[in-house]
């Protein structure tokens, strides 16, 4: 499955969302599909999701999309518990997992040796992170995530109001994608 094909389905859905794309070709691909002053190119590997989180928390009524990669996320795994803890309603975190450091000579990342980023996201507290297997499924999940409505807070923090998913894509033999959006703010103290 091609990352570009997934991005093509995302572009018309993104609207005026701010999009933060990781250091790598994903930035070139995204900017070709949706050129915009609202696209931000990350230079520090790993920081994509942190920058996106900062934007999302700073503009809670505006959608923010992170186009992340496995090499990037592996470099900043701390982002997962932080995102889970902050639970921004407006952040969509997409991870394209192609199991290599694509911009650095395509050496394998740890996901190429078996590390499961969806499992790590779930264990970090992004409870409904999951894989998606096709471009169509990606498109549907993205559409659902971007049109997710804000619901009233509940007393429990155990069940999110709108389901987050995690989308990651592998361009190697196992094609799988997972999309993540955290879409409910917990009323309990986060500190």
């Amino acid at each position, binding site marked *: 499955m091609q990352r570009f094909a997934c991005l093509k389905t995302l572009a018309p859905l993104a609207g005026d969302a701010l999009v933060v794309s990781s250091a790598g070709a994903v930035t070139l691909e995204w900017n070709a599909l949706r050129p915009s002053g609202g696209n931000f190119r990350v230079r520090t590997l790993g920081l994509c999701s*942190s920058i996106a*989180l*900062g934007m999302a928390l700073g503009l809670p009524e505006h959608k923010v999309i992170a186009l992340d990669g496995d090499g990037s996320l592996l470099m900043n795994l701390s982002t997962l518990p932080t995102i889970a803890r902050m639970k921004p309603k407006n952040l969509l975190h997409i991870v394209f997992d192609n199991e290599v450091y694509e911009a650095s000579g395509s050496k394998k990342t740890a996901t190429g040796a078996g590390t499961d980023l969806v499992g790590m996201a779930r264990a970090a507290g992004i409870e409904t992170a999951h894989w998606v297997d096709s471009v169509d499924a990606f498109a549907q999940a993205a559409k659902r995530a971007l049109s997710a409505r804000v619901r009233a807070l509940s007393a429990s923090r155990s069940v999110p109001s709108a389901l987050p998913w995690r989308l990651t894509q592998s361009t190697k033999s196992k094609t799988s994608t997972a999309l993540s959006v955290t879409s409910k703010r917990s009323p309990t103290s986060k500190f």
Partner: protein
Amino acid sequence: MNSTEAAQTIVAALCGAGINFVATLPDINLSELLQAVEESRELIHVPVCREEESIGICAGGYLVGKKCAAIMQNGGFFNSNNAIVSTLLQYQIPLLLLIYYAGDVGDRTFSTTGGLTEPVLQALGIRYYIMRATEDAAELIRRAQILTEDSKRPVALLLTKEFLGRRAALRAF
């Protein structure tokens, strides 16, 4: 003043300087300050797991119009260096770095970290001010915010135990 009063003073100073978004990671000496940040109704508080995240989160906050500060220990500042260089300095993004000064004169255990803090700040070209008198908090933080916004570079404020109300101030400083 004691550490709780110092914490309130520092938070008031941050708010007075226009800060509305703070990313933090704890240190025992920052306990009261972080509690005051959490309790402040004027500050968005983002507790992180690793200080490098704070740099990205504050950069994102800045890009959408927030005025940000990152509170960490100097060891955490060392953790953040690549993010500081390739995001803040690269993109000319201002940020107030409130860095607890472990290994200051009189401390045990942290002399290596303490001894390298100022040289590393200097090497990165980050202007820094060692804060010793809590009474100066409001004015110095206000000035530091002017400097960071005007220069579009991070500015560091090194927080000493005296400043945090945890040790008696010396006339020497």
